């Protein structure tokens, strides 16, 4: 009996330890014998030999014909923040990729929103088992770089076998290639999607006061607000935590910058920033604006005709269209770049990128190949049509003719890509966005003057940039 009990205990212990052990990868992923594994703290070494050709020919012709793939089976874990239709679209693309590279299996896994994804990746880095590639905002990538968890992609991009060609580099928009000034200006992430901060406007309301075009200047916008705000109709609804992207796009539109040229101090506390914050303060002082008290309230209220202008991502276009159709209160609406004092409009272009984690050389190469596939014309066109994001390549537009015809607002926004500016990629930019948001809420609540609120935000931001 005692022996039986002891045996049972030993088995139980074995089960406990087995449960604690890391899960096996779905397929063996040994490093190529000729390529040295990357050192944990150093940049990955260039492979000494090119990986072998794929075992079967690709079934669909991508923009760049695959020239190399790992000889052995490689299974990649791709962590994403894409759910619902976006998740479906990504999985479809992963399946198409596997048709081209039968020995590479990519498993996109939805990990929650971007914040959840960042937490999970951070925990996985701490546990020593990060994914092979993950979607991430540039500031999050910068934190991964600090942890030594991700690899620079420059060598892979320039690799004659698997890298981008000169034509590819001409075709890809520069804003989709993320260089990190903090880390030797190397490329640590690439994007296959971007969106744009734009102004949504209720054309019915503007027409009612004789405005046939959306306001192109800040004064025009204030005039529209003065004429239209009454009852439960407001001019603008600010998210409860402020909105750093809207603030950035307004600063750009006032001819300002968010950060200094050397990236060491912020620049949003200069005159264009003060003008922007003063404008925001005026909206609240005149009771043209309110603070949102629930998620997507601005979208809902826009569809109900309760708010004249909202500022948001072009990725929200399908959601706005659905909400407006369901509510049936607004007949004519549109999007436009925000008002501006600059000769041309300026729009904030942003969006997540994909970063490759330090694993084996074979996996890193396979991950890059998948990333390159996502940025290819055909795959990118499929993704755009499923999500309304902007593509990484200029040539993708050729494949979007019908889509643009069916979605003229998207087509308009596509035309403004030339006016795009991006937000900084510094690791500290994530907390800095919070400081900006806090400054906006402070001004909205009348707790400080625009100048003081910005000064306080800039002080904290500069300390964060200095690594304090």
């Amino acid at each position, binding site marked *: 009996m*005692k022996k039986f*009990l*002891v045996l049972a*205990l030993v088995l*139980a*212990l074995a089960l*406990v*330890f087995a449960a*604690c052990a890391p899960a096996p990868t779905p397929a063996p992923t040994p490093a190529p014998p000729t390529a040295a594994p990357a050192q944990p703290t150093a940049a990955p070494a260039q492979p000494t030999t090119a990986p072998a050709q794929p075992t079967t020919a690709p079934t669909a012709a991508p923009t760049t014909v695959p020239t190399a793939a790992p000889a052995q089976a490689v299974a990649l874990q791709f962590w994403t923040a894409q759910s619902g239709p976006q998740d479906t679209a990504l999985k479809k693309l992963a399946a198409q990729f596997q048709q081209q590279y039968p020995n590479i299996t990519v498993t996109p896994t939805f990990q929650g929103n971007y*914040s959840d994804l*960042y*937490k999970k990746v*951070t925990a996985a*880095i*701490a546990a020593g088992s990060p994914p092979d590639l993950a979607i991430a905002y540039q500031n999050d990538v910068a*934190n991964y770089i*600090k*942890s*030594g*968890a991700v690899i620079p992609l420059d060598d892979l991009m320039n690799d004659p076998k698997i890298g981008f060609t000169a034509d590819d580099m001409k075709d890809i928009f520069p804003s989709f290639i993320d260089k990190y000034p903090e880390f030797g200006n190397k490329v640590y992430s690439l994007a296959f999607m971007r969106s744009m901060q734009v102004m949504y406007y209720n054309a019915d309301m503007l027409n009612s006061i004789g405005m046939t075009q959306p306001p192109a200047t800040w004064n025009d916008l204030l005039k529209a607000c003065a004429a239209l705000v009454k009852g*439960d109709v407001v001019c603008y609804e600010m*998210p*409860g*935590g*402020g909105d750093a992207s809207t603030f950035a796009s307004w600063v750009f539109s006032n001819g300002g910058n968010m950060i200094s040229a050397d990236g060491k101090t912020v620049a949003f506390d200069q005159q264009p920033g003060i003008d922007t914050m003063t404008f925001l303060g005026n909206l609240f002082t005149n009771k043209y604006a*309110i*603070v*949102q*008290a*629930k*998620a997507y*309230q601005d979208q809902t209220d826009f569809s109900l005709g309760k708010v004249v202008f909202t500022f948001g991502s072009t990725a929200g276009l399908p959601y706005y269209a659905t909400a407006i159709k369901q509510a049936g209160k607004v007949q004519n609406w549109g999007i436009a770049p925000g008002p501006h004092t600059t000769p041309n409009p300026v729009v904030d272009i942003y969006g997540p990128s994909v970063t490759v984690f330090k694993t084996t050389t074979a996996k890193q190469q396979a991950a890059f190949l998948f990333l390159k596939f996502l940025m290819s014309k055909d795959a990118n066109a499929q993704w755009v049509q499923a999500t309304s994001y902007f593509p990484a390549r200029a040539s993708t537009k050729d494949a979007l003719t019908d889509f643009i015809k069916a979605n003229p607002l998207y087509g308009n926004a596509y035309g403004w890509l030339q006016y795009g500016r991006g937000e900084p990629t510094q*690791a500290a930019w*994530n*907390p800095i966005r*919070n400081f900006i*948001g*806090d400054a906006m*809420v*402070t001004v909205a*609540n009348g*707790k400080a003057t625009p100048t003081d609120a910005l000064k306080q935000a800039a002080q904290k931001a500069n300390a*964060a940039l200095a690594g304090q």
Partner: protein
Amino acid sequence: MICDLADEECILARSTPVAQTISPRTAVQTRAIRKRRTQWSAYIFILPAFVIIGIFHIFPVFYAVYVSLNKGAINRFAFVGLDQYARALSSGDFWNALVTTLVYALLTMPITMALALFFAYLLYQPFVKARGIFRAIFFLPYVVSTVGSAIVWAWIFDPRSGLLNFVLTRLGLPALRWLIEPDGVGLLVAQGLGVNIPTWLDGPSLALVAVSIFTIWQFMGYDIVIFLAGLTTIPNEMYEAARIDGANGFQLFRHITIPLLAPTTFFVIVISVIGSLQSFNSIFAMNQAAEQSLGGPLGSTSTLTVYMFDQLYTYSNYGYAAAIAIILSCIILAFTLFNFKVLGKRSSY
């Protein structure tokens, strides 16, 4: 044959039935070995639990202490000694978060307990029928998903279309901004009355009060169940004897229920103090549901746990966040020891 004390085989051989004549000294040794064997099997039995507790409870504590002595990116820590603790204790944000934590505890704990005791006493009365149904109704908020209920409460508190403001405006009172209001309730009342008050009378923000209302609603059911269990342990004879002596309802409650419920009350106090100081889910969920930044508006709902979470995930200050966690643990430990020292003695009858 004389065995060495370390030679177990020899001793075992001596303890077999073959050896009919066992000296008193050998019998003692045999018992010691059996005891030792029994102890070993006991250790083996508790080993799985020990391993699980060790890995998931004890190790993280030591790891948190280790992280709190470092700074830098994850996996790239640099030892800084007690700097993170010094940084916390000299940070205005940390002290604001500590004050908010204590205010939040004071707002939620006494009211939750008082309401729970009231409803538990009411439910315990013989005239209350379907007691089980009421108990389930009161307990329901405790088991419902915090995120789900937070969304419903965010709608109740919504300034534009919420239920509370609908009622307030129908009563001729001004609509309030609830979860997005950073101003103190004292200040709002003073503004409503048209009087000026000193800043220290501003009180907690309306947002914190709104979150506290949600917390009270959520946790009252748990306390009711505990109090109901405590009430059933009070012998009926006590009440009968007191009634014969002419005690009225209030006297029964004051002189029988309250004293005899003291051990239960003590338990609820200890659990509530720990729970309120650790509270995170309800604040986080309400912040999210009301589209506020974490601890918003303007940091008025930023308790220590929220501040710690923010430092960890927004600012990637791993060492600093770990130091806050350790300080918070020490504060909770101090409160718990105080409760045991001061209230523990008074709770035994």
